[in-house]
């Protein structure tokens, strides 16, 4: 425990004075010509580099940082990060020779920071282990390896049919109020004990929403391994613009460095990071605002021409490193909000084409009570299949087929005609499978339990259960298995696939449970 004594303060001050650099170097200075809308135009600074960090000296010697964006013939356009009100015309600006860096390290876990890495949760200063540049070149082909480990979200519908691997980029897309953030939060909560570091980047959201989210994560014990980077709606556009990149940079520190803080290599494995950008449409809007005030020419939907590059270079930083480079990973879950389900708008099409798949959330399903409202028909994961657990692969194939044929039949049977027995059976199976995929919030399921639930559905154990009872059956069955047949779950966990032995024991157990379940249903 630290004691606050005069001596400790004295020591701290002395230590800082030791490090004080009294050398004065010459620096290139410029003058602010114009300031407003969070941007500044600067005269001079002929040596400034694109994206370089600029230091503005404002009223009363206050330092405000900015980013050099437009390098023109005799002036520089820069965006201001921080308090724009202290900067006036004729203020001095000088270059720093650095680009924006954010602090990172274990000290940030459980903290809420702004896009510059400064704490905003009132829990005191953060001890940084290292700094990472906000803009960073994504690793090349040689440094990567294909995605091969699963990143379990704990959501049945996603882990079974749209599996996500560590190092993948999976888009979560949907209208407002369809549960996009809920999926992201569930995914974070499910990473407990998975040796995963989660970074949630809130862009342009209400501060109260972010506060709620922090509370939720804390309640579920998920803040211990989570860092929240928050650029709320009241932060300036440049801050919202760099927020996702800052989140990626904070995550990259953990991926490129091992547990001991040294660069990761074959003997010093890098860690696994999950990065959620919620949401990139707001970042694009912030970037549009910035670009327009910088007088860059507008393109489609008034976005600047390089908005595709903005998102592609951000998402390209999601990676699964090769074993020689420590085998760490950075999984990206960007979120995009669509307007009235229009996925052909500029930003959604861009991000869909960049990512390795997408999870579509649909308003209709949401209001039908199908939550999470994932439309499994048009949601895909292009690379996650190779990272899926074998047990899940065994059962999920039939699930997809069942649901596909169900949807097809459902469309036909809406015309209302006599159905033969096989069709009826297929409809009944489909209805139960759809019901099986419903899941509450904050109740992630371990993968072996998900596999068992789908196994029970796929092998017809649910066919005689009423549709309304399916979720209850699933919950009680898993409770029963956990209580009385923990061996089956344990074996499935270690074997990671359905062997004949496990299948026969599981069949017997489910059959036995079903008898009890049916009787309890009558009593009620």
């Amino acid at each position, binding site marked *: 425990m630290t004691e606050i004594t005069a001596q400790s303060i004295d020591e701290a001050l002395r230590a800082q004075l030791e490090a*004080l650099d009294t050398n*004065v170097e010459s620096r290139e200075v410029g003058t602010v010509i114009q300031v407003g809308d969070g941007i500044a135009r600067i005269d001079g600074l002929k040596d400034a580099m694109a994206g370089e960090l600029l230091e503005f000296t404002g009223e009363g010697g206050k330092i405000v940082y900015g980013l050099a964006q437009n390098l023109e013939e005799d002036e520089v356009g820069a965006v201001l990060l921080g308090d724009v009100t202290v900067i006036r015309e004729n203020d001095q600006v000088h270059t720093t020779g650095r680009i924006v860096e954010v602090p990172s390290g274990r000290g940030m876990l459980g903290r809420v920071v702004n896009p510059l890495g400064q704490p905003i949760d009132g829990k005191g200063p953060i001890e940084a282990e290292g700094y990472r540049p906000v803009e960073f070149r994504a690793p090349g082909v040689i440094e990567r390896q294909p995605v091969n480990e699963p990143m379990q979200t704990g959501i049945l519908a996603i882990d079974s049919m749209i599996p996500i691997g560590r190092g993948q980029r999976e888009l979560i897309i949907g209208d407002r109020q369809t549960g996009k953030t809920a999926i992201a939060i569930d995914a974070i909560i499910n990473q407990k004990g998975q040796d995963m570091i989660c970074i949630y980047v809130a862009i342009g959201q209400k501060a109260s929403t972010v506060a709620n989210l922090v509370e939720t994560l804390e309640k579920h014990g998920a803040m211990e391994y989570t860092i929240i980077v928050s650029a709320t709606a009241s932060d300036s556009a440049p801050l919202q613009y760099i927020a996702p990149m800052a989140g990626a940079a904070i995550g990259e520190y953990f991926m490129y460095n091992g547990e001991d803080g040294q660069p990761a290599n074959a003997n010093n494995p890098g860690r696994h990071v999950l990065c959620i950008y919620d949401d990139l449409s707001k970042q694009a809007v912030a970037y549009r605002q910035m670009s327009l005030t910088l007088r860059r020419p507008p393109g489609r939907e008034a976005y600047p021409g390089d908005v595709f590059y903005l998102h592609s270079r951000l998402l390209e930083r999601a990676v699964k490193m090769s074993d020689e480079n420590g085998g760490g990973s950075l999984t990206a879950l960007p979120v995009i909000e669509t307007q009235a389900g229009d996925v052909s708008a500029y930003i959604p099409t861009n991000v869909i084409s960049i990512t390795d798949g997408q999870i579509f959330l649909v308003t209709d399903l949401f209001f039908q009570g199908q939550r999470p409202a994932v439309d499994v028909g048009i949601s895909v994961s292009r690379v996650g299949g190779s990272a899926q657990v074998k047990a899940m692969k065994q059962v999920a194939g039939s699930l997809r087929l069942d649901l596909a044929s169900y949807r097809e039949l459902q469309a036909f049977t809406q015309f209302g005609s006599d159905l033969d027995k096989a069709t009826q059976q297929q409809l009944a199976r489909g209805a139960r499978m759809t019901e099986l995929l419903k899941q509450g919030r904050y109740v992630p399921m371990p993968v072996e339990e998900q596999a068992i639930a789908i196994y029970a559905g796929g092998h017809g154990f649910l066919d005689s259960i009423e549709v309304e009872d399916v979720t209850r059956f699933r919950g009680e069955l898993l409770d029963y298995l956990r209580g009385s047949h923990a061996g089956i779950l344990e074996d499935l966990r270690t074997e990671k696939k359905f062997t004949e032995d496990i299948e026969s024991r599981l069949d017997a157990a489910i059959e036995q449970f079903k008898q009890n379940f049916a009787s309890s249903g009558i009593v009620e």
Partner: protein
Amino acid sequence: MPANRYHAKAEVDIYAKTLLEQLNAKGGIDAVMEARSQMEQIVAYNRSHIELNRAASDATMAPEKRASLVKGVFSNTSEELSSVLGVMAQRGGLDILPRVLAAYNDLIKNQLGVTVVDVVTRVPLDDHLRDLIKNKAKNELGGDVVLREQIDTNMLGGIIMSAGSRRIDASMNTMLEGVRTTLKKTS
């Protein structure tokens, strides 16, 4: 103002060159320096005050009237400078003045071979210090060094030296600010 930026640059160069040559012929380096500091003041004033700029480029006014207006405003500057400003106003406005100033500075350096070092201090310099600074600048930048001294009583102490776009800020204020930030850092 011409649409082609090469034309614009040529125009700026003509203004700067005319001004420099006339001033140099008439009053030597001192007149050149005097006009330079006056132009700097005008540019800085124009950045935070829009009225003069607007009046100088007001299309509803006859060009001759604009020229006489601007000449009137800057009547206490040298004749050459005020007439150049008047021509600028007549031909479209004072928007290009910062570029003219930049070109003027380049010409001072390249054509006259003079390095201008702006020095800001709290107390007046003595000759010993002037020699010291001149030697330093001469060694590092070359050319004949001309010091432009300025006294700022708001400064606590120390010195700020600027040459071109480069600046050495050894003022007490900046140093103390640095000390303050360092001391506030927790390790």
